[in-house]
């Protein structure tokens, strides 16, 4: 979807503000929100792509004005409601009004849950050989799907070069739209700054995206 989350190349947000005294969480609720998302995200009720989509579909003004962990919290609340894990009245009362339903997977639990926590693997079996080869010129398709996609707007319609083939990975678009784990070839595609930004590009800059095969066509 062409949402406000797709920020690459936008102007008007001002300077980047590094904080030399950065801490992981600025408030206790941020830490709880983070950990709740990790635990509920491990229950198999939705995957990482679906989780991202439910942040992207926050109203644009909410998205832009909410802190990072507030967005995570709003996503979790909405997903729990959508999946029937909690009800509106329970959220109002702050207590459960009945037992939970079985989850698809047993979520992370126990006092050692954080130990050894790491990312899953996203490899999928390939259904066909990779269409593109390293060094080949490709065009990022001019597509504007209403559902979830990981093809950023700034790349669409532009010509780049296949630089790496990253294997066959879970295709986020199909995961969100159809709920299926479809494997697609994933490529690193590098674009010249001038191709993306014309005369407004900085000299010598190049930008790569990680692009799934359905995002690309021969140039």
């Amino acid at each position, binding site marked *: 979807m062409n949402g406000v*989350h797709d*920020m*690459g*190349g936008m*102007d008007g*947000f001002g*300077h*980047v*503000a*590094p*904080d030399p005294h*950065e801490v*992981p*969480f600025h*408030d206790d*609720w941020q*830490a*709880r929100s*983070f*950990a709740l998302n*990790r*635990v*509920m995200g491990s229950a198999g009720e939705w995957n990482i792509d679906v989780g991202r989509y439910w*942040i992207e579909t926050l109203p644009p003004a909410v998205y832009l004005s909410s802190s*990072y962990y*507030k967005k995570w*919290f709003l996503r979790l609340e909405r997903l*729990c409601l959508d999946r029937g*894990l*909690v009800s509106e009245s*329970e*959220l109002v009362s702050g*207590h*459960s009004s009945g*037992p939970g339903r079985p989850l698809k997977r047993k*979520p*992370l*639990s*126990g006092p050692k*849950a954080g130990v050894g*926590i*790491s*990312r*899953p*693997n*996203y490899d999928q079996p390939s259904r066909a050989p990779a269409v593109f080869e390293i060094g080949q010129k490709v065009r990022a398709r001019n597509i504007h799907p209403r559902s979830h996609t*990981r*093809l*950023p707007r*700034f790349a669409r319609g532009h010509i780049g070069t296949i630089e790496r083939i*990253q294997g066959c990975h*879970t295709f986020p678009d199909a995961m969100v739209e159809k709920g299926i784990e479809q494997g697609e070839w994933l490529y*690193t595609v590098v674009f010249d700054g001038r191709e993306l930004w014309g005369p407004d590009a*900085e000299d*010598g*800059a190049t*930008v*790569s995206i*990680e*692009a799934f095969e359905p995002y690309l066509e021969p140039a």
Partner: protein
Amino acid sequence: MQLRVRALETILTEKGYVDPAALDSIIETYETKIGPHIGARVVARAWADPEFRTALLMDASKAIAQLGLEQKVGDHLIAVENTPTTHNMIVCTLCSCYPWDLLGLPPAWYKSAPYRARTVKEPRKVLADFGVTLPDETKVRVWDSTAETRFIVLPMRPAATEGWSEEKLAGLVTRDSMIGTGLPKEVNEVAA
């Protein structure tokens, strides 16, 4: 927010979905165990050991798995090397993808709209916000983390560090130098 988050935690706990001990453990892990010191160890090894450097650039997840770190590092990790002619920067324009396993949780600025919006269009101006100026002849390469591949920058080894131990080298590696928004410390910036 405190009340709303507590309400949801209470409901999910009462329903038996969430074990509060798991929440505590996850928070403690990201507050105290996983952080840039892990990435710094990897970079220092790559500086000290050419064979490891080659293996890291070939397949970072596989190379790091052989280091026997306490925390497991996930798959699809890619190390990109800075050279005198190319400086790499990592961004996620669509959300906040970041090599958590090596650097911990991303700093607020990495997740911020200015960083996500500007880095792909004007990386040198973003570097200026960090006080970093590169030579004109250095080309800037930006990696947008739009899939489940994760990137870490292997910065250039500072001058006058020949013969240094890995531990001492690791002290020169900053978090920002592994994202590409900073450079490693110079020898004169650390205590002898």
